[in-house]
């Protein structure tokens, strides 16, 4: 008996200690904020879109005499419920709506992230409480995501203008300092990959737990429905006339397909809360969830936003390192570009500072050509040509210069990728090369520049040389 009691006490003590350690490890280890930053951006986009659509019938929904009149809606609120929309007079409704859209836009781009995340959550909850009669699953998910993004206070640490601007300021400050041998450092203090934080981990963990709960509850509730047991539930969702936009009635002749889809989606919802926590099965669960929600979006366009919101929430389970590698490449693929820039040219330094600030990892390695022998970077390079225009050497050994180098850098940085794509359109390329060469040939430098050292020539004479693309295989 004594032995039994001692063992029981030891077990309870070990259990409590294990729980305590697990709790700390689960919630309070620093985590990569990249997924949270991405979720913040997408919640901003979804919140903007949702409010924009409500704005198409603004007074019908949020006006004091809309579908649900303000007095009745106020009385119908649950205990402790609140909504700022009750305090906005009809005459100012459009102004408040525009301001709210601005909040979502700022949240999406990550400007004043901490503040706008809280404001966005306030707008979302206010809207939910003002028009509970016009909501569907999408609003619940959006509200939950916005809450945890706001609570974390760390969503601006990645995928945000806040971070970009901070890093750009650092890079420009660093660029102003002359280092030994005249070389300049044009990159920010920290690395491109965002620093892990406890706040990010708390936000992501809360999202993960909530998402597992949502799938679990949805799955358990479905077990009460006979059609989920007979394998025909998806027939009902695919052939509800008010939701469907494609004709799925032909599936009546394919009951086995309907059975498979029904049992498959139910199985996913039931096992998701368990298997999502295991590294090996996590990708399977996320892929299943994405397929499920894309399927819902295809079956019913009105629920597309719900599907997108659920997919966005699933990002909480995705590794930040993996997400970043999608745009920056794997560790062993970096730096993807070595950029030779003129360290004596303030404009060049500022450009490089911007590029390195926007670098999601170590995609771009800036090299001040005034401090090195350029032939050590690539045998085909000459100091004269490099002084004439920016040169980029890819990992494959491909060398590009001038405007082509600029678009190459842009194409590897997510922020500038759209511009780089536009910049490579026929016509834009030619105009871009002319503009680049003009700017490069007239650029100011720290030191007095002569033709011999800087290679400043009239634009016509540098166009061909500066923008020519060379391949190492041709050397």
């Amino acid at each position: 008996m004594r032995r039994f009691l001692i063992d029981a006490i030891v077990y309870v003590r070990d259990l409590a200690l294990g729980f305590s350690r697990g709790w700390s490890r689960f919630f309070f280890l620093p985590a990569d904020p990249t997924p949270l930053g991405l979720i913040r951006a997408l919640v901003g986009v979804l919140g903007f879109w949702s409010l924009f659509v409500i704005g198409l019938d603004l007074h019908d929904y949020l006006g004091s005499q809309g579908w649900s009149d303000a007095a009745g809606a106020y009385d119908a609120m649950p205990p402790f419920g609140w909504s700022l929309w009750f305090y906005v007079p009809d005459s100012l409704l459009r102004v408040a709506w525009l301001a709210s859209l601005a909040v979502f836009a700022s949240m999406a781009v990550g400007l004043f992230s901490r503040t706008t995340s809280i404001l966005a959550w306030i707008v979302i909850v206010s809207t939910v409480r003002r028009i509970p009669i016009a909501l569907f699953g999408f609003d619940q998910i959006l509200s939950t995501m916005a809450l945890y993004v706001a609570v974390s206070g760390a969503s601006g640490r990645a995928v945000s203008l806040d971070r970009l601007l901070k890093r750009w300021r650092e890079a420009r400050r660093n660029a102003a300092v002359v280092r030994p041998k005249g070389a300049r450092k044009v990159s920010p203090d920290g690395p491109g990959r965002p620093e892990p934080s406890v706040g990010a981990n708390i936000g992501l963990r809360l999202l993960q737990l909530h998402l597992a709960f949502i799938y679990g509850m949805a799955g358990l509730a479905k077990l009460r429905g006979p059609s989920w047991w007979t394998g025909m539930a998806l027939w009902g969702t695919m052939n509800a006339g008010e939701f469907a936009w494609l004709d799925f009635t032909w599936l009546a002749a394919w009951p086995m397909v309907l059975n498979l889809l029904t049992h498959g989606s139910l199985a996913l919802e039931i096992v998701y809360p368990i298997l999502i926590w295991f590294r090996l099965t996590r990708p399977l669960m996320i892929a299943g969830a994405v397929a499920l929600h894309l399927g819902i979006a295809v079956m019913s366009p009105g629920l597309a936003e719900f599907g997108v919101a659920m997919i966005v929430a699933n990002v909480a389970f995705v590794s930040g390192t993996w997400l970043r590698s999608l745009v920056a490449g794997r560790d062993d693929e970096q730096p993807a570009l070595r950029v030779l820039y003129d360290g004596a040219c303030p404009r060049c330094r500022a450009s490089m500072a911007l590029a390195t600030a926007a670098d999601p990892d170590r995609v771009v390695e800036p090299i001040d050509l005034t401090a090195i022998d350029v032939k050590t970077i690539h045998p085909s390079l000459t100091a004269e040509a490099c002084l004439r225009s920016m040169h980029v050497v890819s990992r494959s050994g491909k060398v590009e210069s001038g405007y082509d180098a600029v678009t190459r850098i842009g194409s590897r940085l997510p922020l500038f990728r759209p511009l780089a794509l536009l910049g490579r359109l026929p016509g834009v390329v030619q105009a871009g090369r002319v503009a680049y060469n003009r700017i490069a040939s007239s650029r100011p430098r720290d030191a007095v520049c002569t033709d011999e050292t800087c290679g400043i020539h009239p634009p016509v004479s540098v166009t061909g040389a500066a923008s020519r693309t060379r391949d190492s295989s041709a050397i």
Partner: protein
Amino acid sequence: MGVPPSSVLERRFADAFAWHHGLFDQGYAYRYYAEPPPTPLIQATLRREDGEIETVNVPERHVAGPPMRRQRQLALANALFSASLPQLEDPDREGDPRRTWLARSFARHLCRSHPGAESVTLRLRQHLIPSPDRVLEESRETGGPFDLFAPSMFTEPRWIGDFPCDGS
């Protein structure tokens, strides 16, 4: 957790967090599509002073703009349906305050958005989901695709209330 069907223990537990649910907009049950139901639709009949009658459906079959706009209108119909369910199931039952409020609010809004309307009658109907057997049978008979919007796919509109537009 406290949403029916639930145990007394679950309800007590959920009640303890009522402040949290209200303050932070949490506490949803997430019981999506436990059994795919027919879709409720609002049919409003507006009578004008000149005797003309106008019928408004919420939502109409085609709503301009993004699909989400129509989705919100479907939610309106669903809200009125949920609030009116006790009355629809038991016509002798006294109307509860929430149903009265919501139906009145809908009616008032329709009156205001349709100037000249003297009164509005609200009805609810449901868009049914056909069984696979019915689809196969009718497809065999007609030789064409099944029409999800055929009149037989809608229930008879059920009366919710008559509301004068003068607010009385």
